[in-house]
């Protein structure tokens, strides 16, 4: 089978407050034989916040990232639901209107860049989509050395990767809001059904309305625990910030003891590929991952 080579946009948070995501992605890509060419000159997607300031600015910034990726001749991959959503939104506007696209490209010309609509079927996909659509879950299964047998995993998508319906590409890929369940199943684990899987983690309002934000995170964690989850998995580092890093604070707000491990998507895949939890940076998490390791490895690796 041919190797998969992609232009890679890691995003900001994966190199900031969740460095274990960037690290585990590199490790997993290597084990899967996916070659990643990091776009180290690319800029922040704006996370929907810059668009609140100036929509054209957000569109221009992302057009620059797309153009940098296109200049490599490769399709682009991201590892953040929020990047995916914010970038898809800008791409939708850029693709909708050729005059607008030309106007934005004017700004990029200085750097010798140009975003071209539909260039050689160019796509920008989250790692989750790449796994399900390009790499293939069957091919992934062949590489599993440690099936996640008996591990009960709660999927947590992150809003931006599943909504709004008209922007996510369901016409071509109608199962995009089911991929996490399909992936957990492919890895040999058991997908836990609970209320919060497709809800909001609350992170976007953490500095504006802390209580609302943490109540959302805490409620979903508690629902997953009630449903018997051993851990959650998310393709979004911003969700991870609220579900893991803020978990002790969320516990205070919801008045309930939580303590549920939250894994980044590449970490879950990495475990099934036989990687050591430490290599995957799991000790960096705030909510202990000991229970997950105990379920899988039979011993606590304190």
């Amino acid at each position, binding site marked *: 089978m041919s190797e998969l080579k992609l232009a890679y946009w890691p995003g900001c948070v994966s190199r900031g407050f969740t460095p274990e995501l960037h690290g585990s992605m590199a490790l997993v890509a290597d084990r899967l034989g996916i070659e990643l060419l990091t776009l180290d000159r690319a800029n*922040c997607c704006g996370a929907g916040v810059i668009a*609140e300031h100036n929509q054209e600015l957000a569109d221009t910034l992302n057009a620059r990232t797309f153009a940098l990726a296109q200049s490599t001749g490769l399709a682009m991959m991201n590892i953040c639901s929020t990047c995916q959503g914010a970038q898809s939104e800008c791409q939708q506007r850029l693709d*909708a209107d050729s005059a607008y696209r030309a106007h934005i490209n004017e700004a990029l010309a200085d750097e010798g860049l140009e975003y071209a609509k539909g260039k050689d079927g160019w796509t920008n996909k989250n790692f989750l989509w790449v796994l399900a659509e390009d790499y293939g879950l069957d091919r992934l299964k062949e590489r599993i050395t440690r099936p996640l047998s008996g591990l009960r995993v709660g999927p947590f998508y992150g809003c931006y990767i599943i909504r*709004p319906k008209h922007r996510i590409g369901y016409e071509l890929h109608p199962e995009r809001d089911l991929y996490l369940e399909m992936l957990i199943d492919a890895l040999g684990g058991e997908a836990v059904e609970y209320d919060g899987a497709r*809800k909001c983690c609350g992170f976007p309002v953490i500095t504006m309305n802390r209580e609302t934000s943490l109540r959302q995170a805490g409620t979903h964690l508690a629902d997953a625990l009630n449903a018997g989850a051993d851990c959650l998995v998310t393709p979004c580092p911003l969700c991870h910030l609220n579900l893991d890093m803020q978990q002790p604070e969320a516990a205070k707000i919801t008045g309930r003891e939580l303590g549920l491990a939250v894994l980044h998507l590449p970490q879950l895949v990495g475990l099934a590929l036989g990687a050591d939890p430490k290599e995957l940076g799991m000790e960096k998490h705030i909510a202990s991952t000991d229970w997950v390791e105990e379920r899988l490895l039979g011993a606590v690796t304190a």
Partner: protein
Amino acid sequence: MPEYTLKVRRYQPETGQGPYWQQFKVELDPDLSVLDGLLKVRDDQDGTLVVRCSCRAAICGSCGTKINGSSTLACKTQLAEAHAGANRLNGGDQPIVVEPMGNMPVVKDLVTDMEATHWEKIRRVTPWLLPEGDPPEREYVVPPQSMIDVTQSMACIQCGACVSACLSMEADPEFIGPAALAKAYRFVGDPRDAQARERLYDLAQDPHGIYDCTHCFQCIDACPKGVAPMDQIMRLRRLAGHEHEIDDINNGRRHESAFTKIIERKGTLDEALLLQESYAQGITGKLKPSMGAITGLIGSIPTAVRGLRTGKMRSLRKLIPGLHTKLPGDAQDHVKRLYAHAEEHGEELNLYITGEEEVVPEPDEAPDPLGSAVGGGRQHMDKLTEGGSEMAGEAAPTPVAEVEPEPDDEGGL
């Protein structure tokens, strides 16, 4: 005709019993709606089933319900579609799940009380025109193109589906919410209204106002009329924070402007700096942080310390605002130049107005009068709230394509 199973969440308060599930089987044409199914159950099997409905054609907004967990109109959801939705993951023959709307009390079976979380909030945003001066002798005259933008929020039929779906309101029932905020934009964006700034100030300062929305897109997907309430909320933020420079007590504008400035200077996000600046922009400079901002900043310290302990933050360096490195080589200078270009133009491409450009235009498609009037829908942000007369004087750019606006379907990627 196929047989469908409807699993209905029932509640009959006069019996003294709590809510319970009941399944009904109906034989109906797959093209008929879930509402048709419910009415058939009521007619043939159980006359006590209570459903609120009137037009059965997605016009009156009476039959808001949750179908397979998604808020929508029962009359706008076909049985075949609902059955497929119920069996997406596992296949098989699971029943169609029908529940009353969320975020509001249930009166009986599928009927909810929309007063507290819908109607009261609609009244909260002063949903009527507040023009200046004496009314004109005859009608107000505004150019049609200045009104197109607000027609999207005018399409609301008050069904409450967005309120039912709102995830922020689920955590904070006091949130003004998607329906009322979309209604607020309808007046803020109306060229005849003279109180846009006062309206924006009110909504920005409310601790449960425009900055309480988490961008979850649930309201956009739930709305049966394409109102896209979240898009209207983002417009309100853009106008309040950027246009009117309203420095709200919720740190909304501080967060947005801090974020935007950091990317201009660094290219990627300096989280420590964002945290500090969102709460207390220019902590050493001209903008004095509010008491709430200082508490917020202090409240974030335990989280940071925990991160330092596990090695998540790698080093203390990561926690010191401003030490984050900028993009390599001349990349940062190019990003700065993009800022200059975009700040100079500040265009807002409204796909509701323009629709998506057809690659190959249909030869015999009649040109659309709205599309050409607006000139492709590109408009300067600062013209959004100004009087229509100025917009009329503006030379409209030549439309690049004549595409019919489709409020109900913005098309996919």
